[in-house]
């Protein structure tokens, strides 16, 4: 399993497609196997964060389409409505429902010791997806599947350096503002840190200000409006998700400035949701760094291995790409979400 490194965009998409295909294969395998052996489905309890974004909905969808009856699974889905307390409750109830596997997309990284211990005591393996959990004992979960947010941060900074190079601006002073995600979210931390670390390599880059836009378009716009009034010479906006970038673009336009590949301000964003491609095609956004929500097949792969008694890697990153504006029109139709 590759760690969302610098793959070219085309590569990423093809890879993605292939993983999906292989998965359907394994799935069919499982089914035949199951009917042969126990005639029983594998019961998977999945505790999801909520449906707070398109990304999350795609993630849920991926799980639901993977763990179907046809593929030999029974999925118990629980939505935590963005509350960790609810997830803890759900896991406890999964244990009582005698599920075979528990999959958690944690709301927070912290606070999992107690309930994971309960699962372990009941002999139920746990797989973590998306955000990591911060527990004292690694053996409390079998594996983790997700994105490498830090790497996404690195990618963003590297792409920017390269882009500025191409524009022959690498020597100029570059002023950056960041619209951060909800403070404390893994994506926010990883992306902020990644960019921050790479900033050290570019002494001519200045981070004017960071402010959270809470991952929403409206807040992103409001904060950007404020930035634009405080600073006259913003060169780059880093929005830690696409929605905030949309808000920023509107604010920039309202202030009488332009953005995108042909504009005054470079817009750098994360997630690469479908709407981001529209925005890039419209020439408003420069780049979006992917955050792949399609975790289902990857998790199924792990479960199959565990069923066979094989050991699995503790950490499994999903594939992720970088999508600059010039390739957007071409790639959009191939995207799954």
């Amino acid at each position, binding site marked *: 399993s590759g760690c969302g490194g610098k793959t070219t965009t085309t590569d990423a998409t093809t890879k993605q497609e292939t993983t999906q295909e292989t998965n359907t294969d394994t799935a069919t395998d499982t089914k035949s196997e199951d009917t042969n052996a126990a005639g029983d489905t594998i019961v998977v309890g999945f505790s999801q964060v909520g*449906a707070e974004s398109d990304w999350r909905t795609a993630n*849920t969808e991926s799980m639901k389409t993977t763990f179907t009856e046809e593929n030999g699974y029974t999925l118990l889905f629980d939505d935590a409505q963005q509350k960790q307390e609810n997830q803890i409750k759900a896991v406890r109830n999964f244990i009582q429902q005698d599920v075979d596997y528990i999959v958690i997309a944690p709301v927070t990284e912290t606070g999992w010791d107690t309930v994971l211990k309960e699962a372990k005591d009941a002999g139920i393996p746990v797989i973590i997806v998306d955000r990591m959990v911060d527990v004292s004992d690694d053996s409390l979960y079998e594996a983790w599947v997700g994105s490498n947010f830090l790497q996404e941060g690195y990618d963003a900074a590297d792409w920017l350096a390269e882009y500025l190079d191409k524009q022959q601006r690498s020597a100029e002073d570059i002023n950056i503002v960041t619209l951060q995600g909800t*403070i404390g979210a893994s994506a926010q931390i990883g992306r902020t840190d990644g960019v921050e670390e790479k900033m050290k390599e570019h002494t001519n880059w200045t981070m004017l200000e960071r402010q959270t836009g809470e991952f*929403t378009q*409206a*807040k992103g716009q409001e904060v950007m*409006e*404020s930035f634009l009034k405080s600073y006259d010479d913003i060169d780059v906006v880093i929005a830690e998700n696409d929605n905030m970038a949309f808000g920023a673009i509107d604010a920039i336009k*309202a202030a009488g400035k332009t953005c995108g590949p042909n504009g005054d301000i470079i817009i750098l964003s994360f997630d690469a949701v479908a709407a981001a491609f*529209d925005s890039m095609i419209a020439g408003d956004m420069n780049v979006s760094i992917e955050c792949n929500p399609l975790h289902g097949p990857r998790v199924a792969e792990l479960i199959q291995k565990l069923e066979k008694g094989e050991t699995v890697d503790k950490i499994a990153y999903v594939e992720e790409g970088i999508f600059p504006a010039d390739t957007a029109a071409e790639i959009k139709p191939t995207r799954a979400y």
Partner: protein
Amino acid sequence: MTRFKKITGYGLFLPILCFILVLLINVIKTPSFFEISIKNGVLYGYIIDVINRASELVILAVGMTLVVASSGGTDISVGAVMSVAAAICCFILSGGQQTTNSYQNPYLLGALVAIIIGIICGCWNGFLVAKMKIQPMVATLILFTAGRGIAQLITKGQITYIRVDSYKLLGGNIQGIPLPTTIFVVIIVVVLANLILKKTALGLYIQSVGINARASRVVGLKSAQIIFLTYAFCGLCAGIAGLMASSRIYSADANNIGLNMELDAILAVALGGNSLSGGKFSILGSVIGAYTIQALTTTLYAMSVSADQLPVYKAIVVVIIVSLQSKEFNKIVINIKDKLVSYKERKKVA
């Protein structure tokens, strides 16, 4: 002295004073706050931002004021209702697709249905409060919980984008008019509400029911009907606010449209000098309260206060404002002043 008394005795004096005080913070901290320029033929500046951004809140506060006045309770579902209205509007306009570049149905249809849905939500709340006699906060808790779910159901859990320029007009600017459209909507809503209250006896009815529902029944008012009406109206306001918020981001974001707006709306009502236990009310007070809140938020942004720490400052300012408005606080201050004066006098004598 008497004139001064007359001014200070005027009901809206304190809310207005507080609003001005909040603005004055900027004179010291961010002098550029009051600059207004023209960009792209549109007025541009912090003050314009305040007026523009406060629009949804103002409209919600108008509806909330009446709900509070008539039932002595609050409607905590307005934020969720906003998102339902936005979702249904975008759903109709996009014809069910996730994103669209042209209207699949006429805009008016979408807007109308959205507003009607807002009213229906209000009616549901009104039914529970007025007819079923359920306590307002709990009655509206139902839609508060379900609202965003319904909105997500409509949008299938995704953000529905309407990428049509005319959709942005409501939350943006109409070509050739230098002021944001929202201002006009606000003016219409506020004026309309005031007209209804002044030109009919509804205002008196609402106050009467809010002060003493039993006595109001005896004098021939249908308390239930009046309470119901205010909730329906509040739903209408939420519907309009939802359309506005949706237009700003030309999409329906079920999770975030109107998030936590109910609290600010209630706060606006209180900052406007209205009692949350019902009865006498002033719409204008709530309007000023709403602008005060937005002015505070914008001010803090202008001062680069981080969004997640912003509530601390907001809390402090709110406490100061409501303390200033509290009669007890005045009494204490006067007491202390008296004591100081008499102490000084005694010293002089001695």
